[in-house]
């Protein structure tokens, strides 16, 4: 765990979970940040994923499950249950990121990531109650595990709370 006071920082292909009064932070580009929160227990977690699917990726080394939406989201849900006793039925989601920062790239990875995240969360029956995605600039998000609110700053814009 990387923390300063009550702050957890999430890097790429990573999951961090915790409870109030922790804050979980990350910075995103084409990656998607998935924030899951259990209102009653005041616990939550964040997944910083980079790709939609783990299928068909030629990889070196073991599978880093948090890289992908199809493996990372189930792991986040599982960790919240096992470590914090937060049942899936009480979880809601907020999603961020999926920007197209580099122009001239043919595939829109951010958009693909967002679509995959929405599909997988729907399959698990977790409702997305807020989202801020797309565009061409990076996102900095700060997830407050006391309130479930996420402070989202898109580069060059004023922060908004969701």
């Amino acid at each position: 765990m990387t923390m300063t006071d009550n702050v957890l920082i999430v890097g790429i292909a990573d999951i961090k979970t915790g409870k109030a009064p922790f804050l979980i932070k990350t910075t995103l580009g084409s990656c998607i940040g998935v924030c899951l929160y259990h209102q009653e227990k005041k616990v939550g977690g964040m997944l910083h994923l980079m790709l939609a699917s783990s299928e068909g990726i030629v990889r070196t080394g073991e599978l880093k499950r948090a890289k992908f939406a199809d493996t990372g989201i189930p792991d986040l849900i599982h960790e919240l249950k096992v470590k914090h006793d937060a049942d899936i039925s009480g979880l809601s989601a907020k999603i961020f990121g999926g920007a197209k920062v580099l122009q001239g790239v043919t595939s829109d990875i951010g958009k693909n990531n967002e679509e995959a995240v929405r599909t997988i969360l729907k399959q698990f029956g977790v409702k997305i109650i807020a989202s801020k995605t797309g565009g061409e600039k990076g996102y900095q998000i700060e997830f407050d595990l006391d309130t479930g609110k996420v402070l989202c700053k898109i580069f060059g814009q004023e922060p908004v709370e969701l």
Partner: protein
Amino acid sequence: MEDKSRISKAIQLIAQLSIDRASQVFSKMVKCGAKISLEKVYLTDITKATEEIAIEGGEVIGAYIDLVGDAPFKFLITFETNDSLLLTDLILQRPTGSTKELDALTQSAVQEVGNILASAISNVFSSDFQIKMKPSPPQVVHDFAATLFEEYISAIAAESNEILIIESQFMVVRHNLKCAMYILPLKGSDKTLSYICNTI
């Protein structure tokens, strides 16, 4: 399969030669005493690398360049936003403080420093190892440092959990210019790196 420690030595050598050459051209470009020194060459986990940059934070202007050819590499150079204004003054030989706004000229200062340094590195491959490499046109982005870095490593990070970071430090006489420069070997450069191992 080539011994990993020999490939590391090859990378260290390439990194040192590249940075030395880049240092010479950078000094010429800013027309004052300037040095780029090789800070470190290390293999690190992608999560750890991006966590550290996220903690440091900051807003930067960065130039991305692909080095294409026999040894594909990715190159990234970033300057803190305020330092890009100073960089513009140094290159244009204006009194420091003359450039006050971030505009197309300031962004092109970063663009061109990236172009010239990436070219210097490809020139080393060509002259010292007879390996053909050329830079692509730079892409300039103004964003969070962590966002730029994340996009930079994404080509490698999809398939690998570790990345090789070649990090350097810039020093400009009388000015505190904060700059980060990264060189990242891509899949497909292993054969060339093995070839270099055998020639050193």
